[in-house]
Every structure is written in structure tokens, then in C-alpha cells.
């Protein structure tokens, strides 16, 4: 495939799909497609003829796709583009609303993705196939439900073969899950450093002695990390490692049991307490919900990013007025509690992600482009930044000008809540430090935001002094309904 990224047909090769020679992904007019190489056709046909595709896609375990016999981008394509696709099959998978990465998932999301991968591998084995990779990046979330997106991950199972992707599964799923369960939830971010999963030797050295009591962790992490053949041995000696299907099934069952045995230690986080113990009165909370609902009804956004969502109260409210909500918060416990409440609520258009807004996910991998930055992955129609600005300005020291510019670049509309200095939250923040934030005054806030936004409405919440504002980025020449 040519390295050209873009041509006149708005055809963009996805930078995250070049390792597997079975095919590659690309975008055409912002929709994702997959090109399948002739060398993979037999496996692809087997997946269909064995009934595996129908089974997995009907349960929504695997993303559904349509085969594109006469794809639109090849109808008027120049000869160089057409030649790049010569012999390839093109499929168009169901579009995923927002691409998220494993280092942005909370514990229960990672656990769901791990169990989905194991279930798919078990089903594949029953149909004479196996997963040739078990990367956590092959799983995405639609709302709170995981879905496997790599249609080209399946290959014919050869009797007696061990699972090629066993180590990858342990590094991508079991290692971060064990580290979160036994050590700290902040270790989930290690997956961002190690693109192909957290090395097992490192995981084993970081885990506590207590983890040895879990037979699954003792086997698949500790013992597994120590089994390394001596490099001096001749290659021929390890050529035929045989494992029966029954043995393989036992390993998969044991992995499932191990994943299920891991649980998050419930800790009360600072932000988790925020909802119940904040200075809002019942009246001001009701008023806040009423005002936000009214504004969302008039703006009619399709996608909303709730930045600093906390436990997701306003993401839930917003989800009734749009197609998709991405709830972002840096606090693992908040997101965990939100995921838990979403599982019970059956809402399927909210995706909670752990994102530190002062340090969002960077571009990583080859050329810093294999995994995209947060900002490259979508543009919301509306940003909600409720009770966030004081954290960005005071805790992180980000000037109003930078906050306003960033929001105006990312989204069209903005609902922002200004928290004054005499609010108990801000007073607490400034309690043990010098107040150098002389610009932290409402009229300065409005002046600076007005450089980038037009202020549509502002509303002071009763019994709280906090002020809600609805703004629209100036670069959009608009007509409001």
C-alpha cells in the first residue's frame, strides 16, 4: 500500500492498522472501511462459512460489516488509487461513534473487554478458528458495551497449535487488571507507555505477595513471566510445541475464571464524595438541571463531551438530548461508579472515559500516529464544562485565555459553569496556598471568553453564586433557533 495519506477523493489510510498483513483500514469521507488482502481470503471465507461471523455479529460481539462490491471511492478513482486496491476485498464495518483506548478505560471496562476477547476465542475454537492476536485495541465500546472490531483477527485453527496470542492477552488485559486490583488504579496508565501490553516480568515484580494466592495470577503472570528458554538453545528444539484443543480450552476457562476473580478495591475518592457533599442545595441542583436541559433542547447537539463529568449526573441528563455523550474525568473511582450505574440504567449512548483534561491522551506508537490524540478523535457539537474551570485555572494553573481557546477549537457550543472565589470549593483550594489568581473574577472570565465565544445566555444559580453560561464559538457563523 502506498504511503500517501490523502488524495483528492478524501481517502486517508488509518495509521493504526499497518502491522497485520491481512489488510488495512482507511477512511473515506470520514467513514471507516477495511481492505482485505488476497492472502487472508481463505480465513475470511471460513469465518463466514463456519457460521462464526453470524454467531458473533448476531450477539453484537463482533462488529457487523457489509461487503462493498463497487465501493464509491473506486468508481471515479484514478488508476494509481485503483491499482492499490487491485485484488483486495473491501468491507464497510458498522461505524463506531468514538474510538477509545485501553488506557482510558476504567477497571470494569477493561474487564468486560478481556472477557469478550476470551468468549470470542472460545467460540472461534468451536468453529475451527482461533484469534491470531488479542490486542486490547481490537475492542471498542458502544456506550457501555464492548465490541470486537478487528474482523481480520481470525484464522484457521490447526489441531495441536498453542494460542499464538496468549502472551499478548496476558500483557494487554491480565497485567493491567492485576496491577489495578492488587496495587493501584493509576497503574492502568502503564498501558499508554507499553504499546504492546505491560511486560510480564515488570508486572510480576510490581505485584504484591498476596497476588501469588490467586492461582490464575500466579500461573499466567508470575510463572509465565519466568518461563523463558535459554537463548543458546538451537531453534529446532522449540519448533513443535503441541497443545491439544482440550488443553487450550482449559487455559481459556482458567483465564476467564482469573479475570472474573479480580475485583477493584472500593475506595472513596475525593470526587466521588463531591456529589453528595458539595455546596449545592436541592433548589440549585434542580435549577441547574432545568437550565441545562432547556439550553440543550434549543441547541440540539448530536455529540456532547462532558468534560470533568464526575459521577456522570449531567452526562445522564444530556444523553436524552443528543446521540452520543463522552463523559471524561481524571478520577478512576468516579468513572467506575458511573460505569456501574450505567450498567443498571441500560443507557447505551454514554461512553465514560478516564481522561485528565490537563494532560489528555497523546499520539503514541510509530511516528506518534498509531494511536491518536484525544482531540484528533472527534469534534463534539457541544462541550459541557460544569464546575471545571476552577480546577483548570487554580489547581492546574491554566490561564483563562488558553482554556477559552482550547474549548473554541474543539467544539461549537459551550455550556460552562463559573465557580466564584467565595465558593467553598475554591476557598478550600486556596486555603494552603498564596492566591496569585487575580484574574479569577467573573467579568474577567467573560471578557477573555468573549474573545473566542459569543455569550448567548447566563444564569446565576440560586443559593450558590455559581453562574452557568451558554456560548458559541465565534468561528461559527450561525443562526440560533
Amino acid at each position, binding site marked *: 500500500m502506498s504511503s500517501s495519506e490523502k488524495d483528492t477523493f478524501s481517502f486517508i489510510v488509518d495509521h493504526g492498522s499497518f502491522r497485520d498483513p491481512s489488510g488495512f483500514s482507511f477512511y473515506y469521507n470520514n467513514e471507516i472501511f477495511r481492505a482485505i488482502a488476497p492472502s487472508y481470503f481463505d480465513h475470511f471465507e471460513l469465518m463466514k462459512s463456519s457460521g462464526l461471523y453470524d454467531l458473533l455479529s448476531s450477539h453484537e460481539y463482533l462488529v457487523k460489516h457489509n461487503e462493498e462490491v463497487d465501493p464509491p471511492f473506486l468508481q471515479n478513482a484514478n488508476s494509481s488509487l485503483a491499482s492499490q486496491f487491485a485484488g483486495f476485498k473491501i468491507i464497510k464495518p458498522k461505524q463506531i461513534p468514538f474510538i477509545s483506548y485501553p488506557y482510558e478505560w476504567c477497571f470494569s471496562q477493561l474487564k468486560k473487554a478481556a472477557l469478550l476477547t476470551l468468549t470470542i476465542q472460545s467460540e472461534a475454537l468451536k468453529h475451527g478458528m482461533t484469534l491470531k492476536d488479542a490486542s486490547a485495541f481490537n475492542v471498542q465500546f458502544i456506550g457501555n458495551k464492548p465490541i470486537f472490531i478487528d474482523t481480520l483477527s481470525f484464522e484457521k485453527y490447526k489441531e495441536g497449535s498453542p494460542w499464538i496470542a*496468549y502472551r499478548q492477552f496476558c500483557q494487554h488485559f491480565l497485567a493491567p487488571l492485576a496491577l489495578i486490583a492488587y496495587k493501584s488504579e493509576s497503574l492502568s496508565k502503564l498501558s499508554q507507555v507499553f504499546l504492546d501490553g505491560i511486560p510480564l516480568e515488570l508486572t510480576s515484580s510490581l505485584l504484591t505477595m498476596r497476588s501469588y494466592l490467586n492461582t490464575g495470577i500466579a500461573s499466567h503472570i508470575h510463572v509465565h513471566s519466568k518461563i*523463558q528458554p535459554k537463548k543458546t538453545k538451537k531453534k529446532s528444539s522449540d519448533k513443535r510445541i503441541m497443545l491439544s484443543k482440550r488443553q*487450550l480450552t482449559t487455559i481459556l476457562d482458567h483465564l476467564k475464571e482469573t479475570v472474573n476473580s479480580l475485583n477493584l478495591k472500593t475506595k472513596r475518592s475525593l470526587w466521588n464524595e463531591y456529589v453528595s457533599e458539595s455546596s449545592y442545595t436541592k433548589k440549585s441542583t434542580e435549577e441547574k438541571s432545568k437550565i441545562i436541559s432547556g439550553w440543550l433542547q434549543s441547541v440540539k447537539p448530536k455529540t456532547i463531551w462532558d468534560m470533568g463529568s464526575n459521577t456522570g449526573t449531567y452526562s445522564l441528563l444530556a444523553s436524552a438530548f443528543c446521540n452520543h455523550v463522552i463523559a471524561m474525568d481524571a478520577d478512576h473511582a468516579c468513572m467506575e461508579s458511573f460505569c456501574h450505574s450505567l450498567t443498571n440504567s441500560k443507557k447505551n449512548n454514554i461512553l465514560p472515559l478516564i481522561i485528565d483534561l490537563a494532560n489528555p491522551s497523546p499520539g503514541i506508537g510509530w511516528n506518534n500516529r498509531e494511536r491518536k490524540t484525544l482531540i484528533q478523535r472527534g469534534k463534539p457539537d457541544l462541550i459541557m464544562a460544569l464546575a471545571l474551570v476552577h480546577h483548570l485555572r487554580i489547581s492546574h494553573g491554566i490561564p483563562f485565555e488558553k482554556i477559552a481557546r482550547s474549548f473554541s477549537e474543539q467544539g461549537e457550543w459551550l455550556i460552562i459553569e463559573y465557580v466564584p472565589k467565595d465558593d467553598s470549593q475554591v476557598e478550600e483550594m486556596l486555603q494552603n496556598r498564596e492566591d496569585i489568581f487575580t484574574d479569577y473574577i467573573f467579568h474577567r472570565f467573560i471578557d477573555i471568553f468573549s474573545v473566542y465565544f459569543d455569550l448567548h445566555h447566563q444564569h446565576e444559580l440560586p443559593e450558590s453564586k455559581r453562574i452557568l453560561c451558554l456560548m458559541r464559538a465565534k468561528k461559527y457563523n450561525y443562526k440560533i433557533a
Partner: protein
Amino acid sequence: MHTTLLYIDPGTGSLIAQVILAGAAAFFMFFKNAFKSFFNRFKSDSKKTDNEQNSN
């Protein structure tokens, strides 16, 4: 004719580990299930006794 497109390194150690751990996993799961069924029987026996007592 199927060709295998092996593009990830499975790690020789990880292939050997599967052979060893398959035996260990079978052992652990056998004992866990035996342990569970023993206690479940014990539980269902006590439930039965409770029910019998209640019906009397």
C-alpha cells in the same frame, strides 16, 4: 490451502508456558469445582433440612 499470517511474536516461553500451565489450570479448576460442589451439597442439604423443618 490456508496460510498463517503470523505477525505478532508469540514468545517461545509463552508457548511452553501454555503446555505447563494447561496441566496446572486443570488441576486448580478440578479442585475448585470439587470444593464448590462439596459445599453446595452441604448447603443444599442444610436448605433441605430447613425446608423439612418448616414443612413440619
